[in-house]
Structures are given as structure tokens and as C-alpha cells.
């Protein structure tokens, strides 16, 4: 027994009652690298001092994505959340909206009555919940692009597919030659959503959003057709075998970047690791390859016969909100302004699509002229973007995710799958 008491006493001595001084702004996120802190993840966080910007000190805690969701929830309900937090738009920000400060007055004070003009409208739309601006977008991400490896195409005298039939034939030609045509990480629901939205928008733009809003049925013929084409990709040779066992990161990204797969669907967030010297070097070191490939970007192949490839669709990649119960709001706003406005040039250099109007890509670190041309083309597609990436209703997301996988394995017909999604959609309280 004596030993036990000793142990308890010694343990208690480890308790320290120090409190975190609240003069510093705290920020937690899962994509913290964008802030330009430490090249590698930093679990214990980092201190960033923006001395040139009014002397704001920011303490950043970086989490892996799954951990972040757990930690965020615990912090919120216990009232110990950080001053600033990162969010995804859609379901996540809707659920947390009641705990977030309305940033409209801050924006008006900082930038005047026309503050909205600073931002890309599609970004602000998605961070506004019930009329309250609960977060500001840090950078945008546009999805629905078809990335390709021109070097591989050149090797077999192929060109990037411009319609569905070409997509099938190019992929199968590559297959016959022992290469992977189009690689897809079907294990990851988020990239499945991206691909599905891309196909749906290509067939009949906007129907999918109407279905989400409840003003159209998920069994609309264009959506059923999208699901049908999706299912066919698993059997007609476009996708690699065993796609359901691959993830987008790292499997697909590794295969594509290291030249083992000729095509993939990704978005603008992938620019850094492929088109910049710094990012590409990181990829080469991790994946162990050294060849310089020519990577290109275009839209998804034409599937509705109008002769034009698919368009991109964009959502804020990360948006940042302020805790309504923070006792440090003025300082937090200063930090937020720095992250949202002043650091845009950092983001542009890493080839993120900025959330602000009028900020161009900074291609100073681009790998080659081919890369620059690809990026210019991508920018054009971004300007022509239509629609968004994230769904608002969790029930629909789940049902759609299940539908996509069931059709992929052949458990359900496309129509049955869409009926299942429609059922979930009707259970949503709009």
C-alpha cells in the first residue's frame, strides 16, 4: 500500500497549474502547411510571428485530418476551443456555425462597405450560413480536372482524350502496353464525389445542385446517366484494376507523379507538388524517382456531345472561422486578416487558387515552360469554373458515397443507386 501512495504523490507532483497566456492567438488546423511554417508537419505546433503586421503572434497546432475532427469537437463542447479554427465548407461549417463569430462587421470595418468585392463570390457564398459570415476562405480549390502525363502519351503516340470513346481507347491502349491509363483512388469518398460531380456537370450542368436543394430528383436522367458512366469506368478499361483498394493520396498521386499512371482526376490543390521545383523535389524524394515528366491539365472528356471538355467547379479549400467565445477577438481578427489577405502572395507562389480577386499565380518557381503553359490553361479553366465541391447535407453525402461504391462493385444498378440517394435526400429537413 505504501508504494501506491508514493506513486500517487509523485504523479500529482506532475500537475502544473500553468495556464496558456491569452495574449497569443491560437489556431488549429489540418492543412497548416499553407501558412509557410515548417516544411514538415509539426505536431506540437509552431509559433508564427507576424511582426511586420502589427506584431500579431500566432500559435498553430497541426493535426492529421481525422484527429482534427475529434479534437475540434471536444474543444467546442467543452468551451476550450482555439481562437481560430479551420473548416471545410458544406456540412462541417453548418454544424459548427452556432459557435462561430459573424465576421461581417469585422470585414466592413477593415475593408469598407464594399469588402465583398475583394473576394471571389463563390468562396464567400459557401462560408455564409443563414446570412452570417462564419468563416473566410483561405484558398480555393477547383476540382474536376483531368491531369495527364504528356511524356507517357508521347511514348505511345497518343494524345489526351477529348471524349468518352477516346478515353476508353487511350486507356486500353496503355493497358495493353503494361501501363496504367487512368488511375483513381476509389477508396476515398471525396475524390469519388469530385469525379461524379464532374461527370454530372458535364452531362447537364447544375442538375446535381438542384437535386441537393430538393428542387430536382436524384433520379433525373442526367444523374442516372452519370452514375451509369461511373460504373462503366470500372469495367471498360478506363480505371485501373482494384481501384476500390487504392487511395487518392498517396497511391494515385504517387503513381501519377512518378510516371506509372498516365491520367488522374485532381484539382488545383495538386499544383504545388507537380508544377513547382520545391514541390516536385519533395515528390521525387518521397517516391524515389528522378525523371522530369511533362504534366498537363485539361477538363474531363466531353460526354454530352457538345464538343467541349468539362468545366472545373470550386469550393474554398480551407476556410477559417473565429470562435464566438474567444476572449481575444481583436487580436484574432488581426491574425485572420494576415492569413487571409497578406499571405496571399505565399499561397500564389505555391500555386493555390487565391480566395481573393485579382491575385495571379506566381509562377516563379515553376518547373518548366511546359508547366507554365499547363498552369495558364488551368487558370483559364478556373475563371470559367461552375458549381461547387462540397455537399451540405451529411445524409446525402453518405447515401451518395454508398451508391457510388455499390455501383462500382456491381451490387446495385445505377437507377437503384440513385433511388437510394433520392430517398436519403427526402429525409433531409431543409
Amino acid at each position: 500500500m505504501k508504494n501506491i501512495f508514493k506513486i500517487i504523490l509523485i504523479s500529482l507532483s506532475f500537475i502544473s497549474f500553468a495556464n496558456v497566456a491569452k495574449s497569443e492567438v491560437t489556431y488549429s488546423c489540418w492543412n497548416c502547411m499553407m501558412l509557410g511554417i515548417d516544411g514538415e508537419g509539426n505536431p506540437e505546433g509552431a509559433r508564427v510571428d507576424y511582426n511586420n503586421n502589427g506584431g500579431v503572434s500566432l500559435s498553430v497546432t497541426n493535426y492529421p485530418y481525422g484527429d482534427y475532427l475529434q479534437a475540434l469537437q471536444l474543444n467546442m463542447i467543452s468551451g476550450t476551443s482555439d481562437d481560430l479554427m479551420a473548416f471545410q465548407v458544406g456540412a462541417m461549417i453548418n454544424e459548427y456555425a452556432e459557435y462561430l463569430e459573424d465576421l461581417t462587421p469585422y470585414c466592413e470595418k477593415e475593408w469598407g462597405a464594399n469588402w465583398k468585392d475583394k473576394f471571389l463570390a463563390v468562396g464567400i457564398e459557401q462560408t455564409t450560413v443563414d446570412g452570417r459570415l462564419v468563416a473566410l476562405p483561405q484558398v480555393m480549390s477547383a476540382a474536376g480536372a483531368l491531369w495527364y502525363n504528356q511524356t507517357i502519351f508521347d511514348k505511345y503516340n497518343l494524345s489526351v482524350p477529348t471524349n468518352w470513346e477516346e478515353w476508353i481507347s487511350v486507356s486500353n491502349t496503355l493497358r495493353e502496353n503494361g501501363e496504367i491509363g487512368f488511375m483513381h483512388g476509389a477508396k476515398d469518398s471525396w475524390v469519388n464525389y469530385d469525379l461524379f460531380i464532374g461527370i454530372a456537370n458535364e452531362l447537364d450542368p447544375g442538375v446535381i445542385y438542384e437535386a441537393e436543394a430538393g428542387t430536382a430528383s436524384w433520379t433525373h436522367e442526367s444523374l442516372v446517366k452519370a452514375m451509369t458512366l461511373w460504373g462503366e469506368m470500372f469495367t471498360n478499361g478506363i480505371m485501373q484494376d482494384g481501384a476500390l483498394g487504392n487511395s487518392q493520396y498517396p497511391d494515385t498521386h504517387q503513381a501519377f507523379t512518378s510516371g506509372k499512371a498516365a491520367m488522374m482526376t485532381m484539382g488545383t490543390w495538386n499544383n504545388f507538388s507537380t508544377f513547382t521545383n520545391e514541390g516536385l523535389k519533395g515528390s521525387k524524394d518521397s517516391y524515389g524517382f528522378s525523371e522530369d515528366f511533362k504534366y498537363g491539365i485539361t477538363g474531363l472528356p466531353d460526354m454530352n456531345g457538345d464538343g467541349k471538355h468539362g468545366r472545373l467547379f470550386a469550393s474554398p479549400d480551407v476556410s477559417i472561422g473565429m470562435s464566438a467565445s474567444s476572449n481575444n477577438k481583436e487580436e484574432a481578427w488581426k491574425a485572420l486578416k494576415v492569413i487571409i489577405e497578406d499571405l496571399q502572395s505565399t499561397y500564389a507562389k505555391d500555386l493555390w487558387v487565391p480566395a481573393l480577386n485579382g491575385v495571379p499565380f506566381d509562377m516563379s518557381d515553376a518547373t518548366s515552360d511546359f508547366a507554365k503553359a499547363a498552369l495558364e490553361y488551368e487558370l483559364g479553366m478556373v475563371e470559367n469554373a461552375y458549381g461547387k465541391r462540397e455537399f451540405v447535407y451529411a445524409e446525402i453525402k453518405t447515401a451518395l458515397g454508398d451508391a457510388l461504391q455499390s455501383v462500382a462493385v456491381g451490387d446495385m444498378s445505377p437507377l437503384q443507386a440513385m433511388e437510394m440517394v433520392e430517398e436519403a435526400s427526402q429525409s433531409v429537413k431543409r
Partner: protein
Amino acid sequence: MSISKSNLRDILYILPSFIFITVFFFYPIGYIFGISFYEWNGISQNRTFVGLENYKDFFTDKIALKSLKNQFLWGVITIFSQMFLGLGMAILLRSEVRFKILYKVIFFFPNVIAVAVVAYVFNKIYDNNFGELNLLLETIKLNFLTHPWLGDPNTALYALMIANIWQWTGFSFLLYHASLTQVNQELYESARIDGANLFHIVKSIILPLLKPTHIALLILGVIGTLKTFDIIYLTTRGGPARSTEFLSTYVFQKGILEFKASYASTIALMIVIIALILTIMQVKGYEKK
């Protein structure tokens, strides 16, 4: 039977452990029991009382049913495989083989590695295009056997079972090894004098004598199965098409990813109840004999 002071005093030995259990298990069980009667997203200040609706949903939830089936299959196959292999190893290591320590280290090493490591390693091994398993099969000209192990709903669960058996057999081995040291060697001598061979000895002496270990491994195996999470989440996340979905991963999805904390609590509670029922059944089965 009269209760003496010593009976009360004997409780003192148990008390500290019991206090831990109460604080860290009974209190949370009460908490999730309470939440299961509401509809709550896990964050909001608002929650609506919905009575038994979560329970109704659970019993009509096709995915929950599938998860349960998956877990049941998993439990049966992995637990018995581990016990069989573990006992086999423990017995073989009582012979005069050399390098015993090496074997002990090799068999137990997988147990030492964190589940996350096992998940990532097997993810790589099972990769359809670049994974070591298919690569190995191609090298020995068995190309027709290559398969998208984790990408096919028919094989994914079994592929993961192998990862689990690989990781946990060492533990069964450890327990059987410790128990075998308790068996009186003279029993073997007398059996051999009576003409028994290894098979008979195992069947009539070892298996019955090791019953407490069997039961312990069964109970722990069942409970371990019900709580299995990391290996699924880090490899297939319950897919493809829910073929590897477990109640435990379902809880995570509903609670954290879908913001349905109250439904997740209901599922968690059902896991506890199922565990309880199964354990009681096993303990009673032990006592009958």
C-alpha cells in the same frame, strides 16, 4: 453464511480497481445511455428528445446489420485461428528445437508493433498494382492468383483477417506458453508410459488443463473483435461497399464524420450490450463444467 469482518476487509483489495472501472466505464456508459434518447450533433447546445427513435433506427439499419455480420465472421475466424496457431507454436517450442529465442521474438514481434503500422504495411502488401503480395505471386509465375485484395468486397474482409491473425497470434502464444509452464511434467511421463502419443496428450491432457486460458482468450478475443477499429479504418475505412464495415467504424462515421452523435452513442451502447451478453454466455459456459 454470516458476513464477517474479513469478508468486508477482502473487498478493500478490489476497491481501487473497481473505482477506476466505475469512473472510466460506468460513468461514460451512463452518459451515452442518456444521449441515446436525444437527437444531437455532438456539438450544438440544442438537442431534441426523441425517445426510442435511435433504437428503432438501429434495428432497421441495414448497414448496422451488415457490420454485425462482418464482425461475427471476423470474430469466429480470427479468434480460433489465433488460438490454434498460438497453441501449436507453444507446443512446438517445448521440443528440442534450436534457436528458441529467435522464434519467440519473431512470433511476438507483430504484437509489439502498433496497429497503425500493421495497417499501413498490409495496405502496401495488398496493393493491386505495386503491392508485394501480387509482385511475389508474379515472380513465382502464379500470375492468375493476383487479385485486388482490398479492392474486392469478397476478399477485403479476409485479407484484413490475415493481418489481424498475424498481429495477435503472438499474444495467444504468450499466454499458452505461460500456462504450459504450469503443467506438471510428470503428467506427460505417466501418459507416455501408458502409451499415449503427442496427439493424445494434447487432446486429453493439455486441452482440458488449459481451459482457463482458452476461456480468457475467447473472452478477450470477442471483446477485441467488438472494439476493432484502427486496422479497418486505416486500410479500407469500411469499404468497399461496406464489406469491411464494423459497428466500431460505423460509430466513428456516424459520430465524427456525420455529426450524429446521439445515433453513434446508441450504436456504442449496443456494442456494450452485445459484449455483455456474449461474455455472460461464455462465463456461464465455463462454470457449468
